[in-house]
């Protein structure tokens, strides 16, 4: 039997070195007796028969396996060293897969790893520092007493060093004490069990704890499952809990039984009044945006972030009408700034058409979408929504009074001409409205984005460019090539 003595401090690192050597020597798990602390002499005599030697094994483990083992080894179970040694040998020989819970030893080890991780997490949460130096000192000094369930001080302390880098602190536990002084972290065996003296700020903390509690939602089991009673004795706020629980039902009842009150007279004088947007015939291009934002002629306004009004020259000779705002337009409040807007700009630049010389808008002013996880999928507006939004498009047509309107896509064509027929046969042609307004029909730039085949993409883009050129000429705009 081989007896391995591990130190109280640096236990896990020492185990790692020992395990590596034992494996190289080919010592099987059943021939090793693991101990922690100073040698108290083996009751059964360590110098038994020499262990049977197996094949030599070089320990090489995956990173997650090493991290998991090191965590699990902080558990208080005395069997953990032997179990971990057995597991690493089998892992190294490929008899076992890391994470295979059907193996009882692996399953046990992973459960212990989880218990240790939880204990470390609870230590990070429930250590309560008390100030032991002067608040005015250049480096303030704090101390805490904590009783973890497992041997986690060395694994848990670096967190405190990262968090409280500008102060000195000591965390004492029944076994090990962690000390952080002038930026250096060190560990000792604990010599005293003295708690640091009470701190004046604790009264403020208790006040906070008592008042953040809502007595109408008493749920004691939800509290104790996350903050088990074993931690309470070192938490300054925990002394309040029994009383808070006892008085909660009466406090909640008192709130419910109190008569509701009527608003005092000063309420109406003090509350601000939100300006109501101008609506109806008084709206002009300049005052259109707030009125559009508030528009609920159809149901789209309650889902979109904002309405997107038209933009550009107020007396433009050419008015360009798209379908509806997309995700990017909905966020920014400006028309044609998303991917389809980029296609439009590319084609327009080719024929020397500048946006600032036209008026750009959409047939429907709010974004219609369906929510799919983290994205919004564009949905085509229906006839009723187009009809409802026609009021706004008419307003724009009236105010801008363009020489020519360019309808991009079926929705714009439907809104302007009342004819929603397939536009592939209509594109490039001019349709005249009853009031004499001339409408040139073309593709919508997003149609180009949806095409997958490169040849038809190029083709469609050429058609749009050609129509934009025709629109520019018919509107009598000069070509401005950069």
């Amino acid at each position, binding site marked *: 039997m081989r007896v391995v003595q591990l130190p109280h401090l640096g236990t896990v690192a020492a185990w790692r070195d020992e395990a590596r050597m034992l494996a190289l020597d080919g010592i099987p798990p059943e021939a090793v007796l693991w101990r922690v602390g100073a040698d108290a002499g083996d009751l059964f005599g360590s110098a038994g028969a020499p262990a049977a030697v197996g094949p030599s094994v070089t320990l090489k483990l995956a990173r997650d396996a090493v991290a998991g083992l090191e965590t699990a080894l902080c558990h208080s179970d005395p069997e953990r060293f032997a179990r971990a040694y057995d597991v690493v040998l089998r892992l190294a020989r490929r008899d076992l*897969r890391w994470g*295979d*819970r*059907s193996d009882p030893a692996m399953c046990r080890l992973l459960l212990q790893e989880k218990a240790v991780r939880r204990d470390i997490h609870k230590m*990070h*949460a429930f250590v*309560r520092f*008390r*100030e032991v130096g002067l608040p005015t000192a250049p480096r303030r000094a*704090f101390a*805490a007493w904590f009783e973890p369930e497992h041997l986690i001080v060395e694994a848990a302390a670096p*967190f405190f060093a*990262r*968090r*409280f*880098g*500008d102060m000195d602190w000591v965390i004492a536990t029944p076994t090990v004490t962690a000390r952080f002084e002038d*930026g250096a972290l060190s560990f000792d065996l604990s010599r005293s069990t003295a708690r640091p003296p009470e701190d004046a*700020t604790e009264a*403020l903390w208790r*006040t*906070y*704890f008592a*008042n*953040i*509690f*809502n*007595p*109408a*939602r*008493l*749920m004691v089991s*939800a509290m104790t499952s*996350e903050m088990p009673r074993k931690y309470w004795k070192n938490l300054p*706020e925990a002394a309040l809990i029994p009383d*808070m629980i006892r008085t909660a039902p009466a406090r*909640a009842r008192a*709130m*419910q039984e*109190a008569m*509701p*009150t*009527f*608003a005092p007279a000063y*309420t109406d004088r*003090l*509350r601000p009044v*939100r300006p109501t947007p101008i609506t109806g015939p008084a709206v002009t291009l300049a005052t259109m945006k707030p009125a559009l*934002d508030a528009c609920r002629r159809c149901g789209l306004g*309650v*889902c979109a*972030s*904002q309405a997107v009004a038209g933009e550009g020259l107020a007396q433009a000779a050419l008015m360009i009408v798209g379908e509806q705002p997309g995700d990017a337009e909905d*966020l*920014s409040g400006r028309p044609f700034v998303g991917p389809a807007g980029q296609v439009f700009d590319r084609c327009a630049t080719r024929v020397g058409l500048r946006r600032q010389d036209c008026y750009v808008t959409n047939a429907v002013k709010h974004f219609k979408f369906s*929510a*799919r*996880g*983290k994205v*919004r999928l564009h949905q085509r507006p229906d006839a009723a929504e187009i009809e409802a939004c026609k009021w706004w498009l008419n307003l724009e047509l009236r105010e801008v009074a363009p020489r020519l309107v360019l309808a991009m896509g079926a929705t714009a064509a439907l809104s302007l001409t009342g004819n929603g027929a397939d536009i592939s046969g209509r594109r490039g042609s001019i349709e005249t409205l009853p009031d004499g307004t001339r409408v040139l029909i073309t593709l919508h730039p997003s149609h180009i984005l949806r095409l997958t085949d490169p040849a038809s993409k190029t083709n469609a883009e050429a058609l749009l460019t050609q129509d934009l050129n025709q629109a520019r000429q018919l509107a009598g705009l000069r070509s401005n090539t950069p």
Partner: protein
Amino acid sequence: MARKTIQDKLAILADAAKYDASCASSGGQRRDSRDGKGLGSSGGAGICHAYAPDGRCISLLKILMTNFCIYDCVYCVNRLSSQVERARFTVDEVVHLTIEFYRRNYIEGLFLSSGIIRSPDDTMADMVRIARTLRERENFRGYIHLKTIPDASPDLIDEAGRWADRLSINVELPTEQALTQLAPEKSAQTIRKAMADVRARREAAKDTSHRGTRARRFAPAGQSTQMIVGADDATDGQILGSASQLYASYKLGRVYYSAFSPIPDSSHLLPLIRPPLMREHRLYQADWMMRFYGFAHEEIAPKSGMLDLQIDPKLAWALANRAHFPVDVNKAPREMLLRVPGFGPRSVDRILAARRHRTLRYEDLVPVGCVLRHARPFISLPGWSPRGLPDDENLRARFAPPPEQLSLF
């Protein structure tokens, strides 16, 4: 009237802040103070430093800067017409409390909200000043969550996002109509616009310029929102629909559901009820199903619009869609395994990892972390066949709590 001490103010302003459900401190930028020049660390998993007997975690110092407010939202304890005691913290008081609590490891950081005084811009400017003082004067590297006032100017929101880890704007109520009715000074459209701005700024902050310089950080831990449940008559279906729209539109980290809870000095316009805690719990479960289990919101809420309070929504979905079951645990794709009651994302990942090496048997499922009491009727694998269970008419009765005789009096 005697001047209020910091303790008095803390009592009033913590009490006023407790109706905000959020207390998350996870995610965001990784920072620490190992250099010895500052205080605090953040990033990674959040830590709950204490739990109150209402079962809610206390991770942040959650307070109001002031509970004076010129808005009159009917459901709110701090509304203009409420006669609760009022108080106001100074910038230094909030900074002092945050730093002293943080040094004693009571909290992960600050969650600052406020009633609206004078104007939205004045209030927001004060809140931003607190965050800036913490970061610049105190070198505070812990977590800061600022409740953003939707009507505040874009410049202030921009600065808030520079100092804070998370910004949140409460939509308050699931429908625009209810908001207009109960919170007439607020505008649902302005709230959505403000959330859109936060999303746009966050996306811009992630971009790098053509020279590779990073834009200034903006709310690295994202944005969240809260909806009050039970103050209006919206159905669970409407609430979930509204939540899924918010997730998709503004890339929210979380939507919090807060059961409308009795408040001191309630308004006659909104009678008090017992807080619908079970409904709130079911909504959170449904929310998880949308975010981690691949369910669409239309699938979750039944035709009646209300979730079953007796059984969890995933089980309810499985019972209503039995044609998909039993699922062959050794063959089914991830998406289908996630729909099995009693299987979670982690146990499904473990099943998939184990499946690559061998065929799973029934007895392997417990160590993997599956809840077999729920899963049993819906799965088949070597060692277990549900036989007629998926079609059993009384299947629901196996899960629902036993019926109770109502009180006759």
